[in-house]
């Protein structure tokens, strides 16, 4: 009975040639098309030339606004009040992981206040911080913050008026605790 072959038979040289050619074509496709299209890496400039790198740019644009953030910490909400006498300043801060979101709303009852919403990285040098939102005279503000780094993120209010004001802050989001330093 005739048994069909279970492999193709090639000369040693033919086999080596075939293997090397396959590897070469794969590398060529990898560097000219796949890397630019999939990862935006374009060592030979072919992605730009052929326009396949657009795939990369577009996918980033489409992805980022709809990207889901999956909460791993505890969801918390707090409302705190504090009174500021004329000339007095005070801070409230939330301890957060990088990328965690917090929504906030605060009001100042009694007059406008100076506010600096800012964050301090976990191992930052003393006095080193990043400002997110500076304003000289506000009676209310609200918004949402995605913590740019792990550390404390919060508000410094200063009463530059001549009457006492009461600040009421409400927060909700993923943070460990909200506290007054």
């Amino acid at each position, binding site marked *: 009975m005739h048994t069909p072959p279970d492999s193709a*038979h090639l000369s040693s040289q033919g086999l080596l040639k075939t*293997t090397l050619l396959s*590897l070469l074509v794969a590398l060529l496709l*990898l560097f000219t098309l796949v890397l630019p299209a999939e*990862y935006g890496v374009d060592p030979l400039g072919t992605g730009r030339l052929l326009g396949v790198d657009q795939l990369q740019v577009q996918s980033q644009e489409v992805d980022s606004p709809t990207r889901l953030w999956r909460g791993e910490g505890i969801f918390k909400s707090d409302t705190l009040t504090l009174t500021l006498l004329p000339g007095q300043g005070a801070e409230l801060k939330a301890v957060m992981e990088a990328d965690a979101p917090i929504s906030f709303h605060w009001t100042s009852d009694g007059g406008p206040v100076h506010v600096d919403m800012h964050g301090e990285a976990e191992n930052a040098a003393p006095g080193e911080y990043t400002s997110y939102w500076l304003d000289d005279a506000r009676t209310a503000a609200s918004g949402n913050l995605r913590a740019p780094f792990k550390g404390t993120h919060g508000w410094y209010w200063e009463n530059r008026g001549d009457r006492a004001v009461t600040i009421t802050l409400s927060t909700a989001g993923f943070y460990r605790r909200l506290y007054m330093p």
Partner: protein
Amino acid sequence: MNLVKPDLLLTGLFCLLGLLSVDVMAHGVDGADAAFMQTSGAGALPTWIYLGAKHMVTGYDHLLFLFGVIFFLYRLADVALYVSLFALGHSLTLLAGVLGDIRINPFLIDAIIGLSIVYKALDNLGAFQRWFGIRPDTRAAVLIFGLCHGFGLATKLQDFSLSPDGLIGKMLAFNLGVELGQLCALGLMLVLLNAWRAHGFTPTQAVSANALLMMFGFLLTGYQLSGFILQP
């Protein structure tokens, strides 16, 4: 004279596989399917079967490997044996991976899957016999690579925080779907392969087909290794 040249047929098959996979499966599961997977409770088993089947039918890496495996198999009993070994391997690791929460870097596991395609193409070209004087037991190799493919499936599911509610049932349903999808894909491949063989299957064509297969294997390996290096 044949209307359709067999090598054109093969090229067509590869192109079809490529098109199918481009938007469906870059690396895992798309939006609506992902949302379902994360919210699904113990019920909805038919949907899990469907997702398993879809995953297999659109997973070009698994399909290319299977194509390499059945390339030189003529008897249905042999096809059944090898495919069962492959199924056994990937079922074990899919279940163990998800249920035991074993995490392997998906880029590395997919790179190994790419190499499994290279291995099978080289094996089909008789390379191991020629280079090393011995041919590794293909049954063992198919089982071992089946285990790798299962981890690949598992890592894709583990990207989602699957609800633990009825997890075993859901994984068994998904796995059943994978096997059903594999049977469908296999059926199509066998039809095409047999049509090709019936029209005369020249050694040159067999070499070209396996060279192309090997090229895809190298390309997939390069793609995944680059991902491992470039993406944090």
